């Protein structure tokens, strides 16, 4: 006895939902369907879109233990031998819109909980949440979108802007930087040369740049430089250790 092939329910999708594996209606896509859609998307573009997921060498470089030792850096790169589970997405600048100077990027991580995707954290520039937000404020900050950064309140009841101003003052930095660091977005003007804070390349020393900014030049480096295992081609992150 033959069995009728299961009828596929119609769905719609958007390219940005592909990584989440969701349709526009919020339904979960199968792995096979995701691959199929990714191939279709790639074939429709004049310029290629590539994605890669898996274990890679961690590209980040930072004297983490020096940082937690109250900024007593020893030039020891905590991440030199570490790996990271990476999601690499390569898209042409044309996919970012037609107005280069207005491109701002931020990412969020969603966890699947009871068949629902729940925000776990978000990130744009390096170390914003880490350096400026205390205790429960980290979770509050992670839960809001960047368009709320200028008005949202911390657990203490002050704005994040005021909280950032307080920390900048204590660190010797310019408190007015608070409204530069917030909203936490990584601006990327692709008509100009790339380099942190205009986008972020793997080899950009975001820690040295951030230290210099937030301490008003009081500290300029953690003594650690870029890794040597970056690849010149996609997926750019080095082979895992």
């Amino acid at each position: 006895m033959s069995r009728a092939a299961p009828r596929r329910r119609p769905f719609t999708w958007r390219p940005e939902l592909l990584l989440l594996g969701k349709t526009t209606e919020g339904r979960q896509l199968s792995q096979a369907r995701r691959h199929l859609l990714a191939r279709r998307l790639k074939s429709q573009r004049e310029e290629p879109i590539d994605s890669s997921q898996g274990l890679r060498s961690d590209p980040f470089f930072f004297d983490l233990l020096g940082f937690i030792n109250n900024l007593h850096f020893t030039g020891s790169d905590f991440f030199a031998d570490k790996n990271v589970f990476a999601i690499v997405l390569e898209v042409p600048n044309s996919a970012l819109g037609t107005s280069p100077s207005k491109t701002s990027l931020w990412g969020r991580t969603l966890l699947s909980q009871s068949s629902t995707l729940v925000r776990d954290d978000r990130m744009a520039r390096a170390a914003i949440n880490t350096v400026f937000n205390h205790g429960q404020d980290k979770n509050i900050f992670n839960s809001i979108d960047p368009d709320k950064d200028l008005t949202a309140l911390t657990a203490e009841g002050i704005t994040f802007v005021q909280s950032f101003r307080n920390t900048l003052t204590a660190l010797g930095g310019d408190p007015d930087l608070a409204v530069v660091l917030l909203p936490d977005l990584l601006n990327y003007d692709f008509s100009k040369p790339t380099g942190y804070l205009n986008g972020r390349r793997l080899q950009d020393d975001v820690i040295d740049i951030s230290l210099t900014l937030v301490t008003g030049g009081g500290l300029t480096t953690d003594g650690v430089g870029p890794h040597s295992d970056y690849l010149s081609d996609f997926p750019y992150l080095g082979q895992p250790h």
Partner: protein
Amino acid sequence: MKTIDRRDFLKMAGAGSAVVVAGVAMPVAGYFGWTNKDILRFRAVTGMPKAPLPSYASYVIEGQVDLRARTGQLAKSIHAGAPDAMSGVVFPGTARSLRVTDIKQTGDTVLISGEITDKMGLLKGESPTLSIEIDRSAGLAQADFLGSKVVMRLDAHD
């Protein structure tokens, strides 16, 4: 190849780092107590870095020592999360076991000295030995962290 779980740490730190999962969640504070009149058990904890930076890691020294025999075991590690939100997630390469080499007791103060049992893979600036001074009346301890003196908190323990 190391096993790394970046997600747990990101949740607490809000920024990139790498960690290994070391087990179950830990109590949020330190403790000390006696299992008999000569055996002292303790856990000392401090948040790192210090204000004005937010703490997003916890330095933990714990152990059990025999004050009469002047022997015992210590362990130290750095956990993701500030003391009030400390997890069982340990920064890779920071967990150490130590053998007690000496104990001095003066009033409410106990000075415990130890040495790391496996000296392979010491961190830059990390001493192969450790001294922790426990002040039971103040509920505080003082120890070294990569060359810096840190004050750690002890809490009462049944």
